[in-house]
């Protein structure tokens, strides 16, 4: 959810943070409706057809709680189409933080809260309880694997980055350092990015990418691996790669092309975990993610603006969680979504790259300023709530509650 152009003059006037209604790239309703039309609805339709035509076809989704809420509010047909997919039994839903946040890095307590909230939301909407965890933007480290294991997850997903794998291959299941039972699935980034990033790139030697060509590339791994994990943004289908690139045709023919080779099959993450033993231990002491060429945290935490904003929001949490004000806590959590900090990134500012493409703000500074103004309003609300709470406690002291009044 994107913060509207929130100015210092809006602080304290009680206006909401996320209610831009301009129809532009800051208008959350307009964005959801656009992406639903271009991606979620047509892609879900293709997938449902695929499952009908190829009962072996499997797929898995990780959908944040914030996204699910917005589907409920602005695009209920999208939610219905996801439900229909889950009902086929061929689709697995994964756990993540409800607010697509960086809480795994900043606060274990808050992380556990958000994962639990998400688990509850998934149970309510789809009637299933996920057993595999994928963190925000595929952010991963030994510590995160250990937290996920403690929460009872059997598996966790991560980027199969070269710098963590070394000579090893992402086509096997690994054991994270410092854990006992949880299994690690690694993204095959070359094949995943062939679809997600390079599909429509005419200068790429693989262009044009057809389902049969891709199936050949996949089959080449037979004999040298157990699994090929294709992880990508769902918006690849129709939003990053537009319909006219042929991406939906690719998606439609992919199952049958893959299955032409009898050695191939499809599986969900938990099926992989059941089926394959770990091939070794993978030690990842430093954070890895799927963002940017660095595959680290620099997309969200690499400059003074991002650090100040993150420090501010998590410092606020120390007091907010003691306040009995669900709306305040809800807003605080929405303000933890990683995208807020992504928009403040200045790494490639001068080259006008992918961050700029994804950002609804004119510059990282506009993103920071709106966010920090909201933080100031949050502080005001917090201090008002604290005063109110103290006042109520004081009242109770004067006139103790009696059971007859309860």
């Amino acid at each position: 959810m994107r913060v509207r152009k929130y100015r210092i003059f809006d602080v304290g006037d009680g206006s909401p943070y996320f209610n831009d209604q301009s129809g532009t790239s800051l208008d959350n309703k307009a964005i959801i409706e656009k992406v639903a039309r271009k991606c979620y609805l047509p892609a879900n339709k293709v997938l449902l057809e695929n499952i009908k035509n190829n009962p072996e076809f499997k797929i898995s989704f990780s959908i944040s709680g914030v996204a699910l809420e917005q589907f409920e509010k602005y695009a209920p047909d999208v939610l219905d189409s996801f439900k229909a997919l889950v009902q086929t039994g061929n689709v697995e839903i994964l756990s993540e933080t409800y607010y697509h946040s960086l809480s795994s890095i900043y606060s274990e307590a808050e992380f556990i809260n958000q994962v639990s909230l998400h688990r509850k939301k998934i149970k309510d909407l789809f009637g299933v309880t996920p057993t595999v965890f994928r963190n925000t933007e595929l952010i991963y480290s030994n510590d995160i694997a250990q937290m996920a294991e403690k929460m009872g997850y059997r598996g966790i997903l991560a980027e199969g980055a070269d710098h963590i794998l070394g000579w090893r291959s992402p086509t096997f299941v690994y054991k994270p350092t410092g854990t006992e039972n949880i299994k690690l699935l690694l993204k095959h980034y070359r094949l995943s990015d062939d679809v997600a990033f390079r599909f429509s790139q005419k200068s790429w030697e693989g262009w044009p990418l057809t389902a049969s060509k891709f199936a050949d590339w996949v089959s080449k791994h037979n004999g040298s691996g157990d699994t090929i994990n294709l992880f990508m943004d769902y918006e690849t289908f129709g939003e990053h790669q537009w319909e006219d690139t042929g991406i939906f045709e690719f998606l439609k023919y992919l199952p049958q092309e893959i299955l032409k080779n009898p050695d191939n099959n499809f599986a969900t993450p938990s099926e992989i975990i059941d089926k394959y033993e770990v091939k070794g231990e993978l030690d990842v002491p430093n954070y890895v993610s799927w963002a940017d060429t660095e595959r680290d945290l620099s997309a969200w935490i690499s400059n003074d603006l991002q650090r100040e904003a993150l420090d501010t929001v998590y410092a606020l949490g120390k007091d907010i969680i003691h306040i009995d004000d669900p709306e305040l806590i809800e807003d605080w959590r929405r303000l933890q979504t990683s995208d807020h900090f992504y928009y403040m990134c200045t790494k490639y500012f001068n080259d006008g790259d992918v961050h700029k493409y994804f950002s609804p703000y004119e510059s990282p500074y506009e993103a920071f300023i709106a966010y920090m103004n909201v933080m100031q309003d949050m502080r005001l609300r917090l201090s008002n709530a604290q005063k109110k709470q103290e006042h109520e406690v004081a009242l109770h002291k004067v006139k103790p509650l009696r059971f007859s009044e309860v």
Partner: protein
Amino acid sequence: MSNPKLPNVLMFGWEFPPFNSGGLGVACEGISKALSASGVPLTFVLPFKIPITVPWCKFAFANESSESVEESQISTLFAGYQSHSLDTNVYTSKYGLPVSISGSLIERVRAYALRAPAIARKHPHSVIHAHDWLTYPAGIAAKEASGRPLVAHVHATEFDRSGSDNVNKEIYNIELEGFRRADKIVAVSEWTKNKVVSKYGIKPEKIKVIYNGIEFNNNGAIIEQNLKKLKQNGAKIVLFVGRITMQKGPDYFVTMAEKVLAHEPNTFFVVSGSGDMEGEMIRQVAGRGLSNKFIFCGFLRGDELNRVYKAADIFVMPSVSEPFGLVPLEAMISEVPVLVSKESGVSEILSSALKSHFWDIDDMSDKVISVLRHRGLQNHLSVNGKEEVKAIHWKKASDSLISLYNSLDNAFSMFLLPSSPAVARTQVPYL
């Protein structure tokens, strides 16, 4: 890489530091120095004789007989950018000087042109380069005399200077004539190029955008003492530097100050500069009851200005129309975060800077307050701004100019000389 053929430039200017009233002189200094560093021989022509020498080029003066001009008068003579009080002939009778020195601005511009052909004949050159309307008539006259191509450089149009569409007709016509007679036009920004296209009807293909540069010298000055005292009491300093004229948007600065003060009361607004709206600006400040929050320090330059930069928390340039805008780059060198209007050329090349429309007071105030409040933002702009400005140097501008000169030179030699390659080819078709 050696250039097979370097142009020889006859450059017409109006002012030159330290005898300058504004950015035109600074730009001429930067351009001539960088061209000469690339090995381009250059003669810099000025309308009046002034006691100036620089190591990188020779000077020629259109009026050699002006040795009687006192230094106190010089600033007035060069004040091509301050106002256009064309009919005031203050010096004519008073000092008994010839019209070329004492006449109105337009008369002086015309007198400059009358002497240009002689200069063009005396100083061999392959290309003529004229800076702004003040020198266009001289440039055209020189072109008529020598037959060499003319480059008209636009540092500001009459629309920028007047801050509106209410322009001086005579000056407009001089500009238009310059643009038409020039073989190529150089604009200091896309903003300026668009003005030349839309207001003068010039074809965009004829105009090349070459951004100004700046010489990077670390600001090693000591912070201004009085401002330091304020800062020790926790006060913040918001800085305005520039001529106080309609074009620079001083009234927007005052309105913004009032909004900022409502949220950050311990803020002071420092104004360095002078101009025809100075009185008006002071009255506005007083009218809003902000007199104790404003510090007017008059026109500062050099070390004095550097000491003020050292105290500033943010520099604001709310210009209504700014063809380029060198001052924010000075502020950035001094590690001061800058907020520039989107109606400026410099905003086209800056990343580590804040940008607002000059009329969007709320947006400007919001950004200023954010910088004053958030150390992260202030640090980021200050560190990255300083880094960024290092890449905005005059060498880049002079490289572009040299390739522009060469393209003209080739076109011309093909046209004028019978032995040019084009002609030679037509003579020997069987090869």
